[in-house]
């Protein structure tokens, strides 16, 4: 589905990605992990074309995406920080995004009910709390039917019930055969939903495989400690 070859990106002197090679199969849930500043968001934004890589190639279904825009029709993206235009209402925003994406099969009502967003529909986005904004963010991401879903820190600001709903949503999308790419710092969440993890360290892929393989490799009994042991080794 996604094929990344020798991806390099520098911001000024700061080399964020230095030769990332990654291939992601269709219909899997993959978590991209790594310490702060390891390039997770840069990697995701490169796939989306928001960051222009210095070197390398990104293929989506065998076609290069660099410099193109049409392919974004097949991606649903949940940004890390939900920043919306302040003076639009939730309803207007939903209508606008639908209009811009020109997609017909949209089930926003089910999602509005699921996250109990009805009372907020007429409110301006600038007046919403962080958690509610994140719910709107999730709604905008999941209301379309695209084969690839990219979630950047989807859990931030969510209450426990919404978190459960989000997990259910992720599972049901996977059932439909979609590929899902997640970044998160909440290890329990990652362990629960993801089938495969990719660990980024200093701009390179340090590990790719299942959680069980990671535990084996590090010799740690649980996932959180396995991750921590990679980090302490690399900082030492």
């Amino acid at each position: 589905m996604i094929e990344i070859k020798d991806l390099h990106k520098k911001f000024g002197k700061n080399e964020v990605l230095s030769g990332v090679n990654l291939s992601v199969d269709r219909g899997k849930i993959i978590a991209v992990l790594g310490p702060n500043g390891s390039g997770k968001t840069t990697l995701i934004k490169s796939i989306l074309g928001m960051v222009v890589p210095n070197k390398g190639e990104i293929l989506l279904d065998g076609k290069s995406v660099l410099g193109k825009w049409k392919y974004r029709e097949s991606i649903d993206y949940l940004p890390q920080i939900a920043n919306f235009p302040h003076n639009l209402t939730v309803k207007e925003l939903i209508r606008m995004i639908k209009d811009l994406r020109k997609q017909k099969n949209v089930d926003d009502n089910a999602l509005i009910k699921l996250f109990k967003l009805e009372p907020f529909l007429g409110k301006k986005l600038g007046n919403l709390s962080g958690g509610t904004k994140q719910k709107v963010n999730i709604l905008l991401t999941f209301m379309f039917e695209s084969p690839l879903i990219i979630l950047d820190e989807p859990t931030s600001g969510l209450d426990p019930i919404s978190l459960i709903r989000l997990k259910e949503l992720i599972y049901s999308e996977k059932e439909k055969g979609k590929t899902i790419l997640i970044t998160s710092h909440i290890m329990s969440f990652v362990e629960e939903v993801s089938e495969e993890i990719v660990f980024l360290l200093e701009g390179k892929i340090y590990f790719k495989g299942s959680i069980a393989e990671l535990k084996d490799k590090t010799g740690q009994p649980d996932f959180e400690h396995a991750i921590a042991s990679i980090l302490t080794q690399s900082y030492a």
Partner: protein
Amino acid sequence: MLKILKYSFYDLMRSRWSYVYFGFYLILGFVLLFLNNNVSKAVITLMNVIIILVPLIGTIFGVMYYYNSKEFTGLLLAQPLKRSTIFLGQYFGVALSLSMSLVIGLGIPFVAYGIFMSDAIWDFGLLLLTGAFLTFIFTALSFNIGLRNENRIKGFGYAILLWLFMAVIYDGILLMSLMIFADYPLDTFSLTASMFNPIDLSRILILLKLDISALMGYTGALFQKFFGTSLGIFLSISVLALWVLIPVWLIRRVARKKDF
């Protein structure tokens, strides 16, 4: 692009500032007309206001809109839209709504006064056209500043500096160099220099049309001598158009390579 333009335009039409700007021109138009009681005089006074004020509002509004809509831009960038579509759509949204405030705001009092029955209709029309040009030029320049500066304080600083330079400092430098090099032939130099400042160019354009040699100044008189009135007007309009096209092309170019 039309969709983005539509949303930016709606967004601005809801903003208080568009109405303040509109109201200002409305009041200015009425006051000038009914105090002067003379359309031609009102047009000259308006020219002096427009030539300074329109660039200022265009630059400030332009950067302000660019920085304020960053979140919106971020949202759009993840959608299946071309980058140039997003930025040009926003740019035309801002420039169009500002031009509309100007044209409608000044248009109402002049129509009420009876501009259609007066011979000053073309002078007035040209004034509005120049105002619209200046809006498009300075909004485009300010979008360029915004795109090149992540730091909005810096961006605002550069925008103000740009306006100050074009509206005040440029003329000062020009005048000083004319005095210092008074012994040399300066015709070509000052003609070229006026092309590089859209504010000077607009002033010359309007004065050529009004044909008031006393107000024309050195470059204006040169313009008339060199090109005659009609060629002069044609030439200055073409250069103003270039002043719109080049910054717009630069917006596209910067937007294509930028990381968000």
